[in-house]
Structures are given as structure tokens and as C-alpha cells.
């Protein structure tokens, strides 16, 4: 059964007709066409599909699209402005925290939400905050570095 859905994604309003059992992930990728959000498992177990729903990270594969009715969604495409990367994105680029990149959008958004709440997290807090996001490539060393660097950049620091 299809129902009207009104959501704001990256500041843009969408008015769609969507089946009630569709997930937010499916709507973002297939209906809206923003493919930066990834599907790694479709079961809420990898974090690749993380988006920010009213600023909070959610596994969009576990959220029904209609649950997001009237809410604000931020996907990786909405981070940063124009051609300027968000400091978290810059930190991921510069520290080498990206390999295949499939986990990256989810990682970056989870990290952003973490830093929004806690601008200077300890290492333990970073590990706790990102443990729902799997990465098979990097071994996470440079991801931890990236989050620390992002925190530093957000506090006004610089690269090199």
C-alpha cells in the first residue's frame, strides 16, 4: 500500500508516494536517488547505511521511511557546503582513513554526530561511539586518528 511521504533530506523537501513497508534507506537510494548512503547488510548490523535523523545517527535500513515523515534527514551528500568538505570529511581524507570507501559515509556521519555531542572525545569514547560501524579494509587505526583530527580541526586547528 502506498502512502504520501513528506521528508526533508539535506534541506530539500520531498513529497513522495511510498509503500508503507519501504525503509528509509530504500527511499533515499532508490526514490530520491542519493546513493552515497550504502547498504552493507540491510539488517542493522554494519552501520554503512547511517544517516542523521534530526541530528541523531540511525541505521536507515532499520527505519521505515514513513517513520521519518516530517523529519530532517542528513545524508553524506548534505555534509559540508558546496565544494567545501566538512572538517570530519577533511580529516578522513587527510589521515588516510578511507580505503574502499564503502563504510566511509556511515563512519563520517556517525563521527559527526559523536563530535556534535562531545567535541573532544577520549579515545575510549571514540571506540564506543563508532563500534556499530564495521570496516573491513582499514583496521580502524586511521579512522580513530581521523576522528581525533576532526575534533582538533573543529576546535580551530590546522593540517600540517
Amino acid at each position: 500500500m502506498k502512502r504520501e511521504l513528506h521528508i526533508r533530506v539535506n534541506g530539500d523537501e520531498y513529497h513522495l508516494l511510498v509503500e508503507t513497508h519501504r525503509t528509509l534507506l530504500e527511499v533515499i537510494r532508490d526514490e530520491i536517488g542519493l546513493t552515497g548512503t550504502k547498504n552493507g547488510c540491510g539488517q542493522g548490523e554494519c552501520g554503512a547505511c547511517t544517516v542523521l535523523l534530526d541530528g541523531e545517527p540511525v541505521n536507515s535500513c532499520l527505519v521505515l521511511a514513513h517513520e521519518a515523515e516530517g523529519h530532517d534527514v542528513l545524508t553524506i551528500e548534505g555534509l559540508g557546503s558546496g565544494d567545501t568538505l566538512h572538517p570530519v570529511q577533511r580529516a578522513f581524507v587527510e589521515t588516510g582513513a578511507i580505503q574502499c570507501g564503502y563504510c566511509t559515509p556511515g563512519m563520517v556521519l556517525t563521527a559527526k554526530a559523536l563530535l556534535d555531542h562531545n567535541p573532544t572525545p577520549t579515545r575510549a569514547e571514540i571506540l564506543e561511539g563508532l563500534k556499530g560501524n564495521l570496516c573491513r579494509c582499514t583496521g580502524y587505526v586511521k579512522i580513530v586518528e581521523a576522528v581525533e583530527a576532526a575534533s582538533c580541526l573543529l576546535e580551530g586547528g590546522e593540517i600540517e
Partner: protein
Amino acid sequence: MKTCIVRKGLPRIDAIPKVSGEAQYTVDLKMPGLLVGKILRSPHAHARIKSIDTSAAKALDGVLAVITAEDVPENLFAFYQWQADKHILCTDRVRYVGDEVAAVAAMDDDTAEAALDLIKVEYEALPVILDIDEAMKPGAQLIHEGKESNSTWSVDRLFGDPDKALAECDYVVEGTYVTHQLAHCCLEVSNCIAKWDKRDKLTIWTNAQAPHTQRQEVARVLGIPRRNVRIINSTMGGGFGSKLVMDMKLPIASVLSRLTGRPVRIVNTRSEEFTTAKTRYPYTLHLKTGATKDGKILVRDLTLIGDNGAYHDKGPATINFSSMMFGTLYNVPNIRFHGELVYTNKAMGTAFRGFGNPQVTFATESQIDELAEKMGMDPLELRRRNVNHPDETAACGAEVCGCAMSECMELAAKEIGWEEKRGKGAPLRGVGLANMVHTGGGGRFYGFNSAEAIIKLSDEGTVTLITSALDMGQGAHTAMAQIAAEELGVRLEDINVLSHDTELTPYDLGSWGSRATFMNGNAVLAAAEDARQSLVEAAAEMLEADPADILVEESKVWVKGSHEKHDLSEVVDHTVNEHGEPISGIGRFVDHLPEGYTIPTAFAKNIPCFSFGTQAVEVEVDPETGQVNVLRVVAAHETGTTINQTMAEGQLEGSMAQGIGFALMERLVHDDEGRIVNDRFLDYKIPNIGDVPEMKAYCVESVGTRGPFGAKGIGEPGLVPTAPAIANAIYDAIGVRLHEVPMTREQIIKALKEKRASET
């Protein structure tokens, strides 16, 4: 101002598209008329197919095609055609849970799913064999009818006189080591789109590590000309060996496309990925090592049984490669190796980062420590007495070029605090280390080893680099671009790398065996040299100077001694727009075969370049729970010349995490009926960010390699020695020796119990 990041290597050229969500993976592609394809898979590990009824599925609205074995070419397929044993869709028998039985193409996901439910298959169950010992019993149920036994392939290697050597040894240790099936767990699942067009050309978009050989494989199994098949890659979400050999979804989607006249996409679910995307070959290894009392290893004798799974894939190549690394490490003069592959009713094995070497190294490097223990010698000292040396030719024929084994070993030992900690650490804490050798440049297994690259400059001096080096995440594109940039004298950001289309790229064996940097890198270097020559000539003409005096750097051109620097674009604009002479270059690298090379006898002469490395770890074990906490891993690996420090470290760090998974966490578990029970991330645990310890990667440079600027591949070595290093550290911590990976809590508790019992 605070400094947040100190750059060690240039950022990857694909980092910005990836971090901004712009990068397109195969699963992200859209196409007009695209249909959804799905595969009906066997729920039985072994059964006869008595009948298939597709009529209800075909009648469903929105279903455009339903196919079974009757609708696809009858050809049998395997990576090696001489081992061909698998149909595109099963004809009368299924051999593992997940075997392809039928397939549908439909308008959307839900319809395709519903259609699968409507296909009725009647099975007659057959005895299920999951265990290699059972499979090898005389009279065992044959998994492939018509074959003599389930033991399907074997190889023997002999160097020196192992029996005589064993008699001369003062110490001999013997043991059996076991490894299990593991899943690659690429975050992007295996998927494809096939489009069979009106001109009879078949285009497949997929995530392939070896698109040219997969193109040949698709043509072979479909019985169509190779020239009609084109494979297009997109950004890849991981490889690790899983995407070397064609997956059956490629020909299945192709047939569905031909029947419907529309492009058809098939994407694995995560459960399908766990159960059918193939696995690391499990080995059972019976190993003997003998040494003299002064610590010279004289002999090694290994019998290795590989669990092939239900069908052939890279098994022989994997076992052969294992034997080469086994023969080369420590240059042991007397070697006996027997390898065998055995069919079981499980998912088939395939290439997986390390290619059989992590399994063998778990056995050999664990046993070195057992030998040292028996001799009362420090295991580090025993290793010191047997290191490989630069420029030696090993007894097995391996030609070692650059070799930094001693440097790697001493560095790792020092960094882990070997002297202070080994045998004397805090209670329940221990340190261990392990060495390894691996290829740093692919192999000559196809009877040749070569690569080509093409470079062209635009009329503004930007560079298009066409290389066959696939980037599945390891960073090959950036490494290739850096090599070209360095040689040509252009800025990295001015280079665009294309590797995605078999119609565009030169024929190539693919990105495996830590091969891309060495092989494709050399080809890129040659192409850049070629282009540079034209560039320098053009500049000399324009600037009225001697070509020998022309300097090019960072996209600036000038005459030696002159202060007037010109933009590269000026030179190119001049030669293109005034003379009509665009600048390009082509390069080829041929890794010439050694004299007397033949594929069957070449053995370790198959390897153009070896890479050595050591890992040292510190662990803490909780004897109550059996929990092993890896506190620290130090990896010191040989890179020849490091092209990009950040990326090389990243390869090692990612490998170490996978090594920890292999050592302590990962195993596909089957129930009695052969179903994999842990087919999701919740149950098949790969290391998460909290599971990895402090890891430190050192890139140890060495000389003597023919790689570009002296570089070696570093994609695989980093997970080879992790598991034995951890096993050795566990022994140091609690005095128990584990012979099976993953080393689970249950194993540790059991071993501790046995140890206590034997002490009382």
C-alpha cells in the same frame, strides 16, 4: 595554531569522491529498463533434483523470465577448465546449501522475491559430507558422480632428502594444525548488471578484481566469443580475493538479459554473501620440522589437505602457492610437501588475501616456537639462525632478491619489548612473534607475467593514465598516479586514472598476489618514460634548447640554469595546437621467465619478487573465561621503496585486523545439514573498532627489487603472520599451545584444563 594532522603520504586521489558520497559503486548504477534478477538457491547441502515446476512463477504479473538448467548453456565451468565441474544452474543435483537452481527476472524486488517462492522444486536428499576425513573414506558417497573419489587433486614436491635429514636431526617436532572456512566480508556484496544488446554484445557491470580473465570466463561458460563480452568496473567496495573468479550470477544475469532484452541486476543479500560468495580454503596440516642442536633447520615435511568445498575454483593454485612459500621461508634444504584437495558439501573455496599462506604460516611459525621450546632456545634466536638472505637462491629454487627479513624481525622484536617481556612478562601476559614470506609482485603461474599502460596528455597538460590495475580499495589508482606523476614531472592532481573497462584497458591478469604495484606500476613507469621523452622533445623545440637540458617538475618546464619556468600546459598547447603533435606514451613490463622455466616444474621460480615481514604481539589471557586480549601488534614489513607511507600502513593495519579475525574470531559454522548458521554480521563477527588493539605498522625499505622505483607489493603480507604470532604469545602467557584457528575461548579453557590435569 594547533597542528591536527601531519601528512605522511599524499591523500588518495579517490578520497574526496568517496568521502562525499559521489563515488559510484556497481550497486549504485541506474539504467533504463533495469530488471531485478534473483537466484533460487538450494536449501540442501546434497540432494537430487527430481523436478522443478516454474509455471506459477512464470504466471505471476511482473515476472519477465524464469530459468532453470534447461534454459542455459550446458557447459561446465571452473577457474581451470580442466577441472570444470559446475553448471550455470544445477541440472540434476545440488551440492551445497546455496547452489544455484533457478533464477527469475522481474519488474521489482518484491515481485522477484514472490516469484522465487512460487518455484516448486522436489528434492531427494543424499548423504551430506562436511568433513574431509569422512569425504576421503573408501566407499564414501561421491559428491561428483563419475569421479573416482572425493579427493580431487594432489601435488607432491620434493627437495633434498627429507628422510635422511630427519635421521640426522637432533630435534624433530610434529603436529597437526587446523584452519576453517572464513568469509571475505567485503562491505559491498558481490553484484552485477548484465545487458545483452541487439548487436549480440554482452556488457557486464560488476565489481571484479580481474575483469579481463572474468570476461574470458563468462564467454567460456556461455559458449560465446570472448570479443562479445565487455566488463565494466565501478568503484569497488573491497575485494580481498573474492572477486577474482567469475561468480555464477554473471552468466545467470546474462541469460536473463538475453531472454528479456533488458538489463538485469543481481545483488547478493548479506546472507547470500556469507553462504555463497566463497571462502578461504580450510587446511588441515600435518607438519614435521627437524633441526640440529645448534639450531639449523634441516628439514620440513608437510602434508596438507584442503577442503575444496563442492566445486573447483582456485584450489590448486592456492595449494601450489602455499607450497612455494613453505619452501622458501628459512631456505630449508630438505623439503617434502604433499597437498591434496577434497570435495565436501560446503560452499566452494576461492582466493582470499594471503592465498593459502596464512594457513600454512600458522602451522610453520607455531611449530618453530614448539621446536625452540623443545631445544630450550629463545624462539627469536632460533629464527635468527635460519633467516633468509638477500640474493640467495633457496633450495626450492626461489630467487630471493631484496630481503629485509632480519631488519623486520629485529625491529618487531625490539618494538614489542622482546628482551624484557618474553618468558618474564606479568602473569597471564605474553609476547610472541612470527615471520613470513610472500610474493611482492604476483606470479608467473599463467606461464607469463606482464602488464601494459597508456598515458595521454591533454592540450592543457593534464594526464589520462590508462592502466589495468584495479582499485578495490587498496589504493592502486593512487599508487599508479604517483608513479606516473613522479616520472613525468606532473602534479598528482593533474592525473586521472582509468581502469574500469575491458574495452579500454590492456589485457591483464588482474589485481591479485600483491601484484599491481610491481607489475602494473612498472608498466605505468614505462609509459610515463615514453611520454616524458616526447614531452622533453617538444619542450626543447619550443624553448630552443637541448633536450638534455630540459627539466620537468610539478607541471613546470624549464631549461637547466634558466629561471624562467613555463607551465607544462604552454608546452603541450604549443605542440598540439601549433604542430598537431599530441603527447602520449605506451609502456609494457614483461617479467621475463627464468631460464628453463616450465609451469609444472617452476615451483618457487614462479615468484618474481619476494617480500618478508615479521609481526610481534602482546596478549593477555583470562584463564577463567578463556578471553584473549591482544594488547598490541607490531608489524614490520618489507616494502622495497615505499610509494605512499599512509597507504602502505593502511594495507598493513587492515591486514592485521583481518589477521586478528582469522586468529581469534572468524569461522563459518555449519549445522549437521550443512547450513551455515552464522550468515550475518551479528553472528559472524569481524573485528569492530573496539576489537582491534593498538597496532603499529613499519614499512621497512630494502634494495634489490625490480619494482617501480624499487617498490614491492604490500597488499597481502600483513595478515600472514598475525595468527601464529598470537598463538605464540598465548603460549608465552599461559603455557598452552593451540593448533586450531580461530583460537576460541572454549579451546583455551579446554587446553588449560588439560594442562592442569597433566601437571597433577
